[in-house]
């Protein structure tokens, strides 16, 4: 089966780090949209589940020159040699050839966590506990997204529920093509400064495709060769140099040397 003929879209994202204020609205919207259960009281940042993290980084200079950036980090939707896909023993992780989205099938997941060790972005989360919602909150669950059980892995899937919704809408109109404005992930929608752009990278006219080609665009750990489809934008060179260790080092040398 030739995937190239089937692949119609390559959904991707561009996140402008110069706009992001680190407010965290995206990760809240994500959790609500995708029925991520609130953590137990004992949970910490390494055991809790949040499909999206916002990481604070600093350039290391002293106040008042110090600069800060916030990096929203979720599944980077690797396109080539997708690390988590090839390692899963039972096909519970798959790249949809029609959308390029790396999907996780929790119903099939064994919970071996091999995909988690494979992911360089730490974007995968294991359900260490049974999901639990405070009394009454379960009424607010999103009916389009199935909650996951204890012992399986989950991660960002570009709001798969919303893709289904958009497809249903298109189908109702007798079309096979979805309207791009019908499919917008929750984080994109919730960002108050519109730092996140989402769309089909194959569509030259799409904002996201244009931004991905901008001079300010870079991807984290791109030298691993996994071709992530989440781009980050920044005009600040110290932020761009966070892309990988070799770059980060070159900066240190110029500073100290």
């Amino acid at each position, binding site marked *: 089966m030739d995937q190239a003929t089937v692949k119609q879209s390559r959904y991707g994202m561009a996140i402008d780090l110069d706009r992001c204020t680190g407010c965290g609205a995206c990760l809240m919207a994500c959790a609500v949209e995708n029925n991520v259960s609130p953590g137990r009281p004992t949970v910490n940042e390494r055991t809790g589940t949040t499909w999206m993290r916002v990481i604070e980084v600093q350039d290391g200079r002293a106040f008042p020159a110090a600069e800060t950036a916030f*990096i929203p980090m979720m599944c980077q939707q690797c396109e080539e040699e997708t690390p988590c896909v*090839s390692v899963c023993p*039972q096909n519970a992780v798959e790249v949809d050839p029609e959308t390029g989205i790396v999907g996780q099938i929790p119903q099939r*997941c*064994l919970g071996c*966590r*091999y995909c988690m*060790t*494979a992911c360089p972005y730490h974007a995968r989360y294991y359900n260490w*506990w049974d999901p639990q919602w405070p009394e009454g909150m379960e009424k607010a669950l999103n009916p389009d997204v199935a909650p996951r059980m204890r012992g399986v892995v989950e991660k960002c899937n570009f709001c798969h529920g919303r893709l289904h919704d958009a497809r249903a809408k298109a189908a109702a109109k007798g079309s096979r093509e979805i309207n791009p404005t019908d499919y917008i992930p929750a984080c994109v929608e919730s960002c108050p400064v519109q730092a996140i752009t989402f769309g089909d990278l194959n569509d030259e006219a799409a904002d996201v495709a244009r931004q991905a080609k901008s001079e300010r665009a870079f991807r984290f750990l791109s030298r691993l060769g996994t071709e992530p489809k989440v781009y980050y934008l920044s005009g600040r060179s110290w932020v761009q140099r966070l892309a990988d260790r070799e770059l980060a080092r070159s900066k240190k040398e110029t500073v100290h040397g």
Partner: protein
Amino acid sequence: MDKHLITRGVQRSPFWKFILWILPWGMLLGWGLYGAYLCLAEGLNQTNMDNRFAFGLWIYLDLTVIAFGAGAFFTGFLLYILKRHELKSVINSAVVLGLICYSGAIAVLMVDVGQPLRAWFTFWHPNVHSMLTEVTFCLTCYLTVLILEYAPIVLKNRQIRKIPSYLVFEFNLHKLMVVFAGVGAFLSFFHQGSLGGLYGVLRGRPFAFREELGIWPSTFFLFILSAMAAGPSFILLTTWLVEKLSRKRLVKHETLSYLGKLSGIMLTVYILFKSIDTLIWINSTSPSSGFPAFEYYDRAAFGTWVLFAEVVVFGLLPALLLLRKRFREHRGWLITSAVFVLAGVALNRFVLTIQTLALPTLVFDEFLSYLPSWQEVATFSLVIAYGVVLYSVSFRYLPLFPQERELAQSY
């Protein structure tokens, strides 16, 4: 009390002494079962693993015991296929050790996965490109082979062999052992390799990632070689330990020396390829993915001494010792070298499991630490205690060392 069950002509300690020996291990076993039960019933929140440290003590244990258990396939292959008859005196013990290591590893894996009841999914819709699939398939097949290799030893028990149907079946099964030895070697080649490939394919973890040779990363072949080095050493060491504990001579020194030699040869080959592999990785593989290799050894306690210890102290040194006949003839050197070989292989598995996960990938990541919880330690001890109990019972009631009777008469 149980004299009628003990092989004729061998001396075993009185029954009460045996019970006294088993009792503490039985208690450890009970504690381990409780820990494992908690992990299964309450979930893996009982462990100290987390989203960042997704593998821990258990995977390390699995990799190590499976490497140590490689002696079963390696001696089986040498004895039945290459007809090295000097190994006949340890093959039964090697099979029991192999069975313990593999069944223990599989038991722990079943606790380690979040949904053990879905384990059969791997068979139902396997991802044939995953190293873990290869491991799962081979481990299950090989455990079956080990059980079939262990069965004739059980059927040789003094009382069981009196039952004619068992004896005749045992006899015929034993005649076909060459098939099982061949299948065992074939399967072991793949799963020992795939366990190494497990880390070698992790493109996202440049500390573990290695270039591919054919369809497998180089760690695939390094694991096979290191397991073949560790296997004979493990048999050597356990045999020596059992001799010490039971105060008996069980095998001739030539056999132990031969096992040491096997270990030495395999270790030399391994260290040679490991060194080449390390150099390629430091100079090419790792930097080309944006990761300067020296940074790996710049964190916490993990200095370059780890690499030095693995390759030189616990690699080259025992290899050179074991290659020299003079050192092999000396009990002390032989045993020390075997311990070093095992330490080196265990360290290699530790580095690949623990250091790989502790090291950061993103620039703004931190070096992580992880300390197993008591439930993890308990489950770990479960395997150790299970192994000691199964081996002790086998040693007492089954003819593990065919030379024992002969040696007892020769002083």
